[in-house]
Every structure is written in C-alpha cells, then in structure tokens.
C-alpha cells in the first residue's frame, strides 16, 4: 500500500514539473510579445505603415519602404526556393532509390542547420563582391534558407499520401510523373503551402544574410531588385544602434510588425494544413 502511495505521489510531482515547464515556455513568448508591444506600440500609426523612413535627423517617417522591400525579398526567395524544394522532395519520395535518397536527405538536413551568417557570407562572396549589394542577392540567400524547410515539409506531406493511391494510379498504366502530378500533388498541395508559408515567415525575419547582401539601402520605396532592397530586419538592427530614442521606438514597432506577420503566417499555415488533411481523409 505504501509503495502504491509513493508511486502516486511521484506521478503527481512529475506531472506538476512538466506542467510548469510548459507554462514557462508559454510565459517566455508572452513576455517577449508584451515587452515588444509595450515599447513599440507608441510608434505604430497610419504614417508608420505608409511613409518611408525619415531623412537623417528629421522626425516622423515610417517603415513603408522596408515593408515593401521585405515583401519583395521573401516573394523572390519563395519563387526560387519553392520549385526546387518541391521537386527535391518529389525526387526523394517518388523516384530516388533508398541508397541515393539517404545521403541527399542528410545533405538537406545539414543545409537546414547551417548558420545563416555562413549562408550570408557565401552569397556575399558569390554575388556581391565585384558587383554591388542587391535585392536579388538577398533573395538568393533567403532562398537557400527556405529550400531545406520547404523540401522537408513537402516530403512529410508526400509521405502522408497513402501508397495505395500510388498503386491505384500506376496500375492504370499511368507513368510515375503523371501520377505525381495528377494524384500525389493535388492531395498534398495544402501541406506544401503550409511548409512554404512557414519558410517565408522564417525568412522574413532573417537578418544575417541581408546584412551582407541588402543592407545599404535608400530610405525611399525601392522596387528595383538589382539595387539593395530596404527590409525590416536590417532596419531594426540599424535603428537600434542609433542614439535617437524615437528611432529605438520605431525599431520596437518594426519588431512588433515582424512578429505579427509570423503569427498570422503560422495561423494561416495551420488552417491550410487542417484543410488538406480533411481533403485526404474525406
């Protein structure tokens, strides 16, 4: 009886510790969000979203140029990484023999774990030295970060597609590529989009690669991608180094915008995934 009581108490204690750990994780996020919101909320206004950065030493201004630039950067990066990532995943799950797939898988996982500053300096050496900084170079660096994320996410949803569906299609005398196009991709589109959205959210906040490739930008809205594109992460970084407290507040506000974007993207991704699951199960 005594032993029974002891086990029950141990169980309760461990449950309590685990619960507290979970609460701590939530608390950390809550503290970050709240402190960023508290410090940045004051700078949020209509002008903040619609006006470009103020000229040096002048009050006011917003981050419109950085928002436009960040959107352009992640769109370009997504356009580069999405096809390569999805095709890589298709190759690994549908075509490659096991002994080829396993090493490629390892390479992709290593790529996913590569420090982003390494990617930044690589692209700097490849595309910036001898040329100039440009939005394209920045997008290319971000694409390298997104590629393994998209490939991994796509692979996971492709593996969710039951093998009986592949068999059904192949048994009709349909070629593998047509099977991929007609049966496998349609049932996994939701999951692929989810992975892409999460990768975009991740890339939108990356700073290190952009410091090398797209950090010396004009304080006006820039849409020429051969020039450095203004972007939110680098703006946060530079503003936080300025002596002007008004710019500090704007940096916090920009951080808040970035965070809100990530949050919205995650929620959208979750909704997309739920929809695609329903589609597969019926």
């Amino acid at each position, binding site marked *: 009886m005594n032993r029974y009581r002891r086990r029950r108490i141990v169980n309760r204690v461990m449950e309590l510790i685990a619960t507290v750990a979970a609460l701590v994780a939530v608390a950390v996020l809550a503290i970050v969000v709240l402190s960023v919101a508290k410090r940045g909320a004051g700078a949020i206004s209509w002008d903040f979203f619609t006006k470009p950065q103020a000229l040096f030493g002048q009050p006011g201004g917003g981050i419109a140029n950085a928002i436009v630039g960040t959107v352009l950067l992640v769109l370009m990066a997504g356009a580069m990484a999405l096809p390569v990532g999805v095709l890589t995943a298709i190759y690994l799950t549908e075509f490659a*023999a*096991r002994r080829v797939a396993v090493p490629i898988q390892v390479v992709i996982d290593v790529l996913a774990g590569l420090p982003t500053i390494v990617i930044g300096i690589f692209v700097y050496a490849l595309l910036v030295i001898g040329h100039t900084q440009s939005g394209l170079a920045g997008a290319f660096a971000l694409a390298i970060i997104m590629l393994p994320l998209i490939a991994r996410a796509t692979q996971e949803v492709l593996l969710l597609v*039951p093998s*009986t*569906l592949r*068999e*059904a*299609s*192949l*048994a*009709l*005398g*349909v*070629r593998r590529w*047509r099977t991929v196009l*007609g*049966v496998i991709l*349609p*049932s996994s589109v939701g999951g692929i989009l989810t992975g892409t959205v999460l990768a975009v959210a991740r890339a939108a906040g990356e700073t290190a690669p952009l410091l090398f490739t797209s950090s010396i930008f004009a304080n006006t809205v820039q849409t020429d991608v051969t020039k450095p594109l203004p972007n939110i992460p680098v703006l946060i970084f530079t503003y936080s180094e300025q002596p002007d407290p008004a710019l500090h507040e704007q940096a916090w506000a920009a951080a808040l915008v970035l965070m809100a974007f990530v949050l919205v993207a995650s929620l959208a991704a979750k909704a997309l995934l739920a929809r695609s699951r329903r*589609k*597969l*199960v*019926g």
Partner: protein
Amino acid sequence: MTEGITMTRVIDVAQARKDAKPIEKNDVVFDIQKLTASYGRQPAISDVDLKVYRNVITAVIGPSGCGKSTFIRCLNRMNDLVPGARIDGRILYQGDDLYASGVDPVEVRRRIGMVFQKANPFPKSIYDNVAWGPRVLGMRKDLDGRVEKALRGAALWDEVKDRLKKNALSLSGGQQQRLCIARAIAVEPDVLLLDEPASALDPIATSAIEELMHELKRDYTLVIVTHNMQQAARVADMTAFFSLDVDEGRRTGVLVEYDGTAKIFTNPADKRTEDYVTGRFG
C-alpha cells in the same frame, strides 16, 4: 464432423456450378512457366506453372502467406515497384514474355488492370476517379460516355449518376470498391486482376461484387485472389490452390493443384488440397 463439412461443400459447389459451361481452353492469355518470385534472397513463390484462359474467371486460393498476392502482382509487373523483388521463369502474355528486356511495365499495366484488397479511390470526385485514367492516357473522346459505360459496367451507375461531382470518399466501402473496378475498366484493359477485392466488405457488398464478376467475364479475363473458399467456389471457373512448403525453416509458396473449380472442391487430386477445402487446415 469433417465428413459433414465435406458433404455440404460438395453440394454447394455442385449446385453453384450446375450451369457452368465447359471451359474453352484453347485461348491462353497467360502462360506462366517456372515462375519464381523472390524478395531479396527469400523466394515467396517457387516454380509455378499455370495457364490462364480467356474470358474465364481464375481463382487463386490458399492459406495466408502462400504467395497468392505475390503471384497476381507478377502478372502486371506491380512487383517491380517493390525494392528487391525479383522474378525468374517466364510469363507469356498472349505469347509475349512480360519480363523481356524491351517490355515497358507501364504498358503492361495499361493492358492488365488491377483492383486491390482495400478500395483505394482517389480523393477526387466520382466522375474524376473514372475519367482521370482515360484522360491521362489520351482517350479523351466522349469522356462522359466512357465514364457512364465504365460505371454501368461496374454496376454503380444507378447509385451515383446524380452525384458524379461528389467526392468518391463519401461512398460506402462496397461502392468505393465498385468505383475502383469502374476506374480499372474505364481504360479498357484486356485482363482484370482482383487481389482479394471483397475481403473488407460486408456480405451484401460482397455478393454485388461477385455478381459483377460474372458480368465482367464476358468482356474480360479475370484472375481473383481470395482467401474465401466459398467465394472461389461461387465465382471461379478455374481454381488454383497454393500452399506453403516449409523446408529448413524457409516458407515458400507453391502451386499444389490447378483445375476446374468443381474438380478442386469436390474431387481434388492432391491430399493437401482436400485438407484445405474441407477445412482441415488453413
């Protein structure tokens, strides 16, 4: 007791087969010679010799693990999709070796359709499930007519004609399986292979599938794998009994006996067949 079971079986089979016409044995569709199929080093079936005749239903029966599914999957080269699968011996399909070097397995599957144990409709509409195969394979002329014909052929038209745009996964299990049959016949194969098509269905859906097989016999050559002996007795003209040879711990499927269904169930030549059909083992 066993005697009693034998007697009822005899009567069942005799009654079921009273109307059976003599089997035309001059038109051979599959001539299987010394077929051995292995996964890795382990042969799943060994030295199978068997002829399948045109417009005849051939049943393959036997205990679990005796290689029935392996055998039927050799007939349309579905086993090619299993890594490590290997074939020795020959399968002549209308005189041509299915495994000759110049033969395209996709073309083989195009002519020799297959229905699987578990209904595996695509997560598409009922219409698209049937239309997809013909569309991809370039049979785009009068697609609506082709879909209707296939659904009628699978005895499903009346049940679904008003909801062709509905998702196929909303159908019942039996309807899904008939949809899979419709999908298979929509591309007009010569042969239909059925791998335990009714094993996951209730008795009513099963009898619908069995009736359908009698209809399909007029246009197609059918090979059905079943673990249900009554089903073989009810539908098949010819029956092949597979069993397991256990030799030094290795279990290999072998063809024990192949003959007219009535003969197999009432007067088998081999003791093992008799033991199996009378329920003494398996």
